């Protein structure tokens, strides 16, 4: 009876009649016979026992992705599965704030349990970059790498081996990049790098003023300020340790907050009393004009500059420099005839002269005031000038070395110091290139010398001995995505006669991973041991505890590098007999030698965090140098704050590397003739939903922060572009197609694309996701040879 019903139900698909017919024709036990060795479900060891009521285990950990927050994470584990995450719940106090997770930290479960994780080692089978891979075993992968590495080393020498700058596993004691350098050091050496993609210009420029990059104070001092200027600083999205928290506390304490930024960032919208929009690359025009007001209104701290500074006026200049090179001479236009007045600056930076006067007076008269620089504006063609300009403003107003002031510049200070696993000595000495110039070192390394930023060349050797031939890109996306000019980079990587080996390890198939010859599945921070620290100014370290076993066939970089070390015959030297957990314990003991308050392993495991209370631990940068100058000189050649740097003067390139900070009209800036062809400036920013490029594939975070370009309504109207339209953004280097958001939160003439989206070129090479680096240039900044990724000219058109 019911048989007919079924037949009707499945009339067009399955009928019982045909099913039985098929079944009886199939030879039993058929299909399984001999093919599947074992079944995947087995008899339960203990017969069905009722689930215990509370078997939940809670392990604390933190990510070791290079995140500005480094929040505290508690993994709730049930039956081997992380079922949910919680975060810091201790009492939230001014001296010991909670290390709560933002949306990035809340999304870690989806990071670890994302179905798209790399699961097995892979070997490229198609052309490089084409994305065709075949699964191989770990042994095969290690065998291949060892063989190729040995061949390349024999043919080109150890200086042909390079580990690319990467931040997917960093801010920790066992960073992936450091570990591969450790192995390369043990097997002949390697070409190293200096700088970073985050802070090249500020790390290089800040010491020309102060002799150090340690210019930060503890953040509690912000509440002692009368005015805080956040210049291109967006801690509400980046978090920057606990900077967002302490700026909020300062606001609650009544401190006025001004944000200078081409965009009304979330920080400007959420915390600022005043947002001053500025044209990108023209920060120093505003700084020069502020200096003009401060000098001509006699608001500078005369006794401070006389006592502590070099180069303010002609009376305080180093020997051997001609007349007219001091700051005052430049600002008043003694030599070039151009006084750097607010009216002069307004034409360049589009900040009204009245606003400039008001800001300068407010900053100079409300002592102490804190001028904090973000790292965005230093990632421009003349970012070094931005850095130096900020430090000079702090110095002439006497805001250095006092509580509530701020020295400006890079802003490091660390209350908690961890001990990293040593990289060991590179047999090639400190032979390094600026990390941004690795593509040059692939194409024409043998033409690169001191002028190109190479450091550590041995006596009598003018150029690098070899081009880069073997590339390790572990836990990083700067092999293409985060490096400039994606199309040019791709062309270099695709050429198999240039790099002869590319080894990539990662958690996902990133745009960089697509260019691997050997692609290795990395585990995540939840699957290994480490210790995480945060962006400075910092006051905490977190034990990054292993919570679950490595998924699929993934391994930590340390684990597979140990396999490679064994193959290369240096396993004992590489590991010194230690696992990652052993290194963590070793690191803790080393740290305890210097800081007896550093917790023991057991204590650390129990508490999860080592956080130093700011009560009685306030640091004010350069306090000693200011209070006791006789015994504490600045670490500069003159022992003073160098407004004028003789070292920079001696470089003899005053147009691009002036000895005092100056506004240098930027290539691809608003005054570049190229604006006729590409009239819009393009900048990026660190978006709250990503840590650099990590989490771009997190679907939750995509809902929280979709990838859209910001454009001012005025610029859009001229181009007949409507909100939500998909637009073409292009210049000579490439093209992106992505949706646009029309807003008055970005200055007219500038468009902004949140950086870190995964480059997704279509068959014509047009990026369909919105990776800003499709349009950025590989031309480095003048002094640091850093990445100028916020200096770009483009045009935008409706599709």
């Amino acid at each position: 009876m019911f048989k007919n019903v079924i037949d009707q139900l499945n009339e067009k698909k399955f009928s019982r009649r045909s099913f039985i017919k098929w079944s009886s024709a199939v030879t039993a036990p058929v299909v399984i016979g001999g093919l599947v060795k074992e079944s995947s479900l087995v008899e339960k060891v203990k017969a069905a026992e009722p689930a215990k009521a509370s078997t939940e285990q809670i392990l604390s950990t933190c990510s070791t992705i290079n995140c500005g927050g480094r929040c505290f994470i508690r993994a709730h584990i049930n039956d081997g599965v992380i079922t949910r995450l919680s975060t810091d719940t201790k009492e939230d106090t001014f001296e010991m704030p909670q290390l709560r997770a933002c949306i990035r930290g809340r999304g870690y479960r989806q990071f670890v349990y994302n179905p798209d994780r790399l699961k097995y080692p892979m070997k490229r089978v198609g052309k490089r970059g084409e994305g065709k891979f075949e699964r191989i075993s770990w042994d095969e992968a290690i065998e291949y790498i060892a063989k190729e590495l040995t061949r390349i080393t024999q043919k080109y020498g150890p200086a042909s081996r390079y580990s690319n700058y990467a931040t997917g596993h960093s801010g920790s004691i066992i960073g992936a990049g450091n570990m591969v350098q450790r192995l390369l050091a043990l097997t002949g050496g390697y070409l190293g790098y200096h700088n970073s993609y985050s802070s090249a210009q500020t790390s290089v420029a800040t010491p020309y003023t102060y002799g150090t990059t340690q210019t930060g104070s503890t953040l509690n001092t912000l509440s002692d300020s009368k005015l805080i200027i956040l210049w291109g600083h967006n801690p509400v999205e980046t978090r920057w340790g606990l900077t967002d928290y302490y700026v909020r506390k300062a606001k609650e304490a009544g401190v006025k907050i001004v944000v200078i930024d081409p965009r009304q960032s979330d920080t400007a919208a959420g915390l600022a009393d005043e947002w001053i929009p500025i044209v990108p690359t023209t920060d120093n025009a505003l700084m020069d004009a502020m200096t003009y007001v401060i000098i001509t209104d006699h608001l500078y701290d005369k006794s401070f500059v006389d006592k502590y500074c070099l180069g303010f006026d002609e009376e305080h200049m180093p020997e051997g420099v001609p007349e007219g090179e001091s700051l005052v001479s430049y600002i008043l236009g003694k030599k070039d005839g151009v006084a750097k007045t607010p009216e002069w600056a307004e034409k360049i930076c589009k900040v009204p002269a009245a606003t400039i006067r008001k800001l300068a007076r407010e900053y100079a008269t409300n002592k102490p005031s804190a001028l904090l620089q973000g790292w965005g504006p230093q990632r421009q063609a003349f970012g070094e000038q931005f850095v130096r300009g900020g430090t000079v403003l702090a110095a002439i107003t006497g805001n250095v070395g006092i509580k509530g002031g701020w020295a400006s510049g890079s802003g490091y200070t660390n209350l908690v110091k961890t001990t990293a696993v040593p990289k060991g000595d590179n047999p090639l000495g400190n032979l390094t290139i600026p990390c941004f110039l690795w593509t040059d070192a692939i194409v024409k390394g043998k033409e690169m010398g001191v002028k190109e930023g190479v450091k550590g060349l041995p006596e009598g050797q003018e150029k690098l001995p070899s081009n880069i031939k073997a590339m390790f890109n572990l836990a990083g996306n700067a092999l293409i995505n985060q490096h400039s000019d994606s199309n040019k980079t791709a062309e270099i990587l695709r050429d198999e006669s240039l790099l002869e080996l590319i080894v990539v390890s990662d958690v996902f198939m990133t745009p960089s991973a697509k260019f691997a010859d050997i692609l290795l599945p990395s585990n995540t921070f939840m699957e290994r041991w480490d210790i995480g620290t945060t962006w400075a100014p910092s006051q905490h370290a977190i034990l990054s505890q292993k919570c679950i076993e490595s998924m699929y066939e993934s391994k930590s970089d340390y684990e597979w590098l140990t396999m490679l070390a064994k193959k290369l015959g240096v396993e004992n030297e590489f590991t010194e007999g230690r696992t990652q957990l052993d290194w963590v314990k070793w690191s803790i003991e080393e740290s305890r030698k210097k800081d007896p308050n550093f917790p023991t392993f057991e204590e650390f495991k129990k508490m999860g965090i080592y956080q130093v209370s700011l009560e009685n631990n306030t640091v004010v940068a350069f306090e000693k140098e200011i209070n006791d100058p006789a015994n504490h000189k600045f670490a500069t050649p003159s022992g003073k704050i160098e407004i004028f740097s003789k070292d920079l003067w001696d470089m003899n390139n005053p147009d691009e590397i002036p000895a005092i900070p100056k506004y240098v009209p930027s290539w691809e800036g608003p005054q570049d003739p190229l604006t006729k062809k590409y009239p819009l400036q393009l900048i990026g920013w660190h978006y709250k939903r990503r840590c650099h490029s990590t989490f771009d594939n997190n679907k939750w975070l995509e809902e929280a922060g979709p990838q859209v370009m910001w454009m001012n309504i005025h610029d859009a109207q001229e181009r007949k572009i409507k909100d939500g339209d998909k637009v073409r953004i292009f210049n000579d280097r490439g093209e992106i197609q992505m949706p646009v958001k029309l807003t008055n939160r970005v200055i007219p003439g500038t468009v902004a694309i949140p950086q870190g989206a995964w480059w997704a070129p279509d068959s014509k090479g047009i990026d369909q996701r919105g990776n800003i680096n499709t349009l950025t240039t590989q031309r480095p900044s003048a002094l640091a040879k850093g990445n100028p990724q916020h200096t770009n000219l483009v045009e935008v058109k409706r599709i």
Partner: protein
Amino acid sequence: MNIENNQISSEEHQLLEGRLKFYQFLQLLLRMPITIKIFNEIKEKGYIEGLREFDQSGQMVHDFFYSENLEESIQMARQDFFGLFVGPEALLAPPWESVYRSKEKALFDFPTFEVRDLYSQYGLEVKKKEHHHDEADDHIVYELEFMLQLIERSIGEHDSDKRKSLLKGQQRMLKEHLLKWVPRFSTDIQNHGTSKLFIGLGALVNDFISFDDQLVEDLLRSQDQPENRLSEC
């Protein structure tokens, strides 16, 4: 309960055998990338001709096994297998129930625990290896494995209460799990597969589980209502 009712009818037996074989067939193809050895084995013993009667999907799978260019077809099917289920690219048809049914679209969500519980009720668990992370319990291969192990047991089971319990387990897996996500999973396979094998198989797996749901319902009914025994229909 009388002895007569405890015996399994020949048609019931035949249906159970058929179901077992079909689940084995599906599971094998979803479990590992096809090789020439598997291809030959299936072609030889799997009565591929018979698949043609299972609508277009069966026809597609059949055509795959009679492809003109064998090597190219197998290569395409292998590429599909990695692209759909393994990677390294973002998966086009992630083979886990949690991905389709959880808000987070990630692994190890509530379906993992639900099926783990169900396996446990029938004395089963995912095979564990020390110092290795376990594969998620709601992977399609495990859910199909659960079906075929319970079917296998039903065949050998002479106690009608136990047999009924085994059928209930199969019904729960179908209604509470497979039917709730395989339709979307199947659509992804069909949309993103490029080989005849997977475009066909994607549809076939979906068609089959809804067909099997009916079969299990009938089988269960026949346990309760001897007058409706399949053999008497």
